[in-house]
């Protein structure tokens, strides 16, 4: 490790880290927002479920690099536009979370849903006040997978020259210099762990009602 290089590059590394966070977290939030109604739809209809979950699984198998290159053709953006990364990762997040949201809603006990209905909750009230809150533990488990997956997928965008921690890898390979590679790996891992931890905390805050013996 070349400490001197690191301190010289400090500002640049922080800049790359900032971009990395932005490029990983934005799709996570957008993906969740899109997956919520889709997952609800899949949960409601036994015929839609296999269709949506099937399409989602298929989307997830498209290689990320291919998607980064293809998206500009669809979105009409420039190849170097960070929006492509946001778009691609949003697709992956949705692909992961559609099934998660549907399964989260399925996990709500039938008795609970029936009681809500019988007490006079309208369908939207039951969804917002009973089913989604009770489904939070399942959704946050899925969100943790998506967050970590996004952090690692973002680095692929370095091959297109979009700045984020992955740029440290390309830089290191080109210079045959290991310090930036190691720094990039450590920062990626730490970032993934922090995001994971934040989702765990958020889940705990939203679900004070779960038995306290949760394995995390």
């Amino acid at each position: 490790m070349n400490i001197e290089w690191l301190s010289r590059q400090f500002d640049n590394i922080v800049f790359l880290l900032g971009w990395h966070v932005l490029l990983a977290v934005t799709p996570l939030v957008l993906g969740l927002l899109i997956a919520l109604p889709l997952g609800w739809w899949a949960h409601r209809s036994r015929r839609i479920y296999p269709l949506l979950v099937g399409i989602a699984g298929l989307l997830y198998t498209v290689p990320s690099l291919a998607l980064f290159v293809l998206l500009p053709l669809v979105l009409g953006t420039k190849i170097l536009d960070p929006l492509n990364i946001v778009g691609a990762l949003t697709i992956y997040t949705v692909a992961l979370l559609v099934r998660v949201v549907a399964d989260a809603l399925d996990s709500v006990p039938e008795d609970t849903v029936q009681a809500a209905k019988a007490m006079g909750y309208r369908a939207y009230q039951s969804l917002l006040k009973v089913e989604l809150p009770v489904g939070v533990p399942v959704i946050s488990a899925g969100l943790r997978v998506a967050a970590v997956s996004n952090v690692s997928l973002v680095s692929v965008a370095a091959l297109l020259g979009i700045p984020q921690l992955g740029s440290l890898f390309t830089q290191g390979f080109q210079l045959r210099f290991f310090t930036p590679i190691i720094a990039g790996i450590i920062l990626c891992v730490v970032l993934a762990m922090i995001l994971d931890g934040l989702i765990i905390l958020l889940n705990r805050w939203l679900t004070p009602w779960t038995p306290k013996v949760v394995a995390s």
Partner: protein
Amino acid sequence: MIKFENVTKAYPDGTVAVDGLYLEAPTGKLTILVGPSGCGKTTSLRMINRLIEPTSGTIYLDDQPTSGMDAALLRRRIGYVIQHAGLFPHRTIVDNVATMPVLLGESRQKARMTALELMERVGLPANFAKRYPWQLSGGQQQRVGVARALASDPAFMLMDEPFSAVDPVVRAQLQDEFLRLQREIGKTIIMVTHDIDEALKLGDQVAVMRVGGKLAQMATPSELLTSPADAFVADFVGRDRGYRSLGFTNVAGTVAVSEEAVVQLGASAAEAQARASGAWVLVVDGGRKPLGWAQPELIGGELKREHLNLSGTSATSTGTMRQLLDAALSSPSRRGVVVNDSGELIGTVTASDIVKAIEAEPHLETAR
């Protein structure tokens, strides 16, 4: 009043769950729907608050047809209790109970006050308020379910096998408490159960349904036992219905109670021997409450607790013929212990006295 008028539920595959049902559940009374599985009792119940829509026919709530009402608003007028309580796992007990008032637009604070009162009413300690459902036993959850259904003080209540998911001891306790509560609040209730004993114990009137969704008989519990409409009802009501119908016959004054000589703990063997009639003597405490029977010839020295035989039950003088007969049959001396409402001894009766009283009055007045 809840009224079914020619109500039918048929499914597209041709299954008829409920077939031309006429039924009236009078205001302030507990009506029970009972029958074997597949008789359409739960379907009938769930058509009242339109969790299931009838295929044809009309259900009236106080003479208003439910079909024209907004389903959600209709449901908010009716308390609903289900088998596994169906509590909201993410809400505290007090907020579970406060659900209906909040839904009806009351402030959260006021709704919680109401909820706390109701928790007390169904026998839940106030320190349960901040707990979550998973921290409660099945019986406690069921009480929360009942409190939640009552929180908005609805005129009607629907109960779907409310006590069947708990063990028999807790079930009996919940049933007794519920009967006491219903005597105070007098709601118009329809309850579904598959347990005929529960139906006979709780119901003001019982509707027996048969497979195919037809009403077999609607009657009071004692009528069901003494005059079942047909072989199906007779069979469903059960074998020992002659004995069980005694459970609806008042004792009050029909059987002569004999005086019984008693001793207290600490008495000598000789004293016990002198008071005993036959091989057994009845032992009471200082307040004349019966403790058990003892055999004087087995007492060495003085009479102690370990000499007591506790197998006998006791009947109250205001209770039912069934309790009285059971007291006589279970007593080791064959003399049944009769007590007053505060548990003090009145005297004893023998099974033959009781049978004589039953034979003398074949149409004993029924308890309800």
